[in-house]
């Protein structure tokens, strides 16, 4: 896929995420009211609206656009979420300097996770966004590098893994972030950060699927079956021909 198409795909993805967060704003606020300070919905909505504005006025390659989105989040989201969502995007954007391919997206995902862990000092089981992100990133990498799947298929599997990660945050006790102050009272509530992370991944999958269905290969080096079903286990290509 040429650079222009990739850049367009990044813009489309940021727009899809911004729309989704606007739709989910109240839901995220409700989740955050239960165990946090009730500002996650508004902060993420404001952050991605600004990110969309910046990305629309930025010229450059995909890495430049992703970095611009990250800087916008850092300046608009504030608190701890600004560095976690925006700073990680800024750092990971460096991995996309050679464009969007299977290899660079794996590196991007890993760098993003690494930055979140470093910044937030959280690990799996602390009831944070890391609980959604870690299984997603590991699944994505394994699907591509070990199972030899197409990136779009790998992304589908990653979203499934993130979904299970979000579910996993409900019954556990928070050990990091504002919710940890509640101790056992945080049990029974789904983590808002893990939830918004899942929304990001779901929208990425939707947009990537659009581009693949439009016969635009995510990996320039691979021919992707246009009919591949991204989110079904071992999807048989229904091979219309």
């Amino acid at each position: 896929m040429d650079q222009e198409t990739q850049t367009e795909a990044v813009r489309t993805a940021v727009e899809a995420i911004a729309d989704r967060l606007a739709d989910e704003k109240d839901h995220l606020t409700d989740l955050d009211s239960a165990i946090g300070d009730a500002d996650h919905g508004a902060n993420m909505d404001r952050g991605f609206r600004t990110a969309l504005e910046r990305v629309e006025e930025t010229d450059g390659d995909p890495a430049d656009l992703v970095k611009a989105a990250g800087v916008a989040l850092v300046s608009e989201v504030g608190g701890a979420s600004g560095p976690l969502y925006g700073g990680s995007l800024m750092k990971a954007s460096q991995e996309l300097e050679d464009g969007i391919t299977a290899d660079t997206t794996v590196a991007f995902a890993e760098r993003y996770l690494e930055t979140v862990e470093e910044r937030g000092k959280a690990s799996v089981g602390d009831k944070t966004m890391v609980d959604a992100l870690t299984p997603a990133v590991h699944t994505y990498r394994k699907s591509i590098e070990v199972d030899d799947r197409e990136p779009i298929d790998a992304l589908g599997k990653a979203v499934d893994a993130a979904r299970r990660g979000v579910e996993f945050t409900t019954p556990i006790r928070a050990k990091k972030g504002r919710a940890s102050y509640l101790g056992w009272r945080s049990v029974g509530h789904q983590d808002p950060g893990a939830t918004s992370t899942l929304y990001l991944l779901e929208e990425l999958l939707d947009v990537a699927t659009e581009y693949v269905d439009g016969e635009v290969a995510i990996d320039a080096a691979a021919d992707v079956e246009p009919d591949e079903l991204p989110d079904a286990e071992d999807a048989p290509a229904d091979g219309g021909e």
Partner: protein
Amino acid sequence: MKKLINEPADVVDEMLEGMVAAHDLRRVDGTEAVVRSDAPVEGKVGLVSGGGSGHEPTHAGYIGDGMLDGAAAGEVFTSPTADQVSELIQACDGGEGVFCVVKNYEGDVMNFETAIEMAEMEADTEVEHVVVNDDVAVEDSLYTSGRRGVCGTIFVHKIAGAMAQRGEDLAEIKRVAEKATENVGTMGMALTSCVTPEKGEPTFDLGEDEIELGIGIHGEPGTERTELMSVDEITDHLAEAVLEDLELETGTEVATIVNGMGGTPLMELYVVNRRLQSVLDDRGLETWDAWVGDYMTSLDMMGCSITVLELDDELMELLAAPAETPGLTVPE
């Protein structure tokens, strides 16, 4: 609650305008960060700090010779954003790099760390930092993992500032700032809650006959609520907690701060200091310098904190070095 505030949303911006009009400062364009008017100073490491507003004179009140070169002001009790801190860092880089003093709150630490990365990515600025965690009251709190950074931060500003003024390099400043951080402890208490501009009413309720011990500087709850005691008893309690944490040997020289939380008459702070000095004396500790006043406040909270810093020759010399800032002056 009656306040001298136009609009809560404008209070930080308008405060900074007033500060710039009063002192030798300028605003970094398009930000809520202020720097000394001649920043960046060539040939010395730039020293910066920042955090939420509402702790005045912290942080911008310590900008001047011998202390900070600049400070970023967040909204009330809210960390400044990383992009603003990054602008601040770049505005204070006179070619020798920049050193950041950060209080240990999750938001502050994450935004400063991200800002440091941004400044490194964008301008190749060399940056080091220290995280101050002097509050002995709590191990983990509403806003922190580990101990909170409170009034002991002012000693770190002073010590790191004297190092920078002397022309020391980043690594040396970091070494000494870390030493000061390791040797300082603070414990605070409140007679009343504070009132944030947005909310306009007390953050927590304290009865007429109640006090809160182990409070932070954001109106967050303390570690215990007790019935009102005499000022001597309260002072004993705070001093005990700090000294137990520091484990000082007899004959150790210390510097102390009796800090007002913003709404406490100086008269009362001196009464606290009288008792504190007699407690130290009873323990065979020698006070080399005692500061009394509002250094790290929590808006209009009535209450105080006690800070003790264990000294060695190096720290003593740095504390004694001249400084000229709105919030602290040490004469030549």
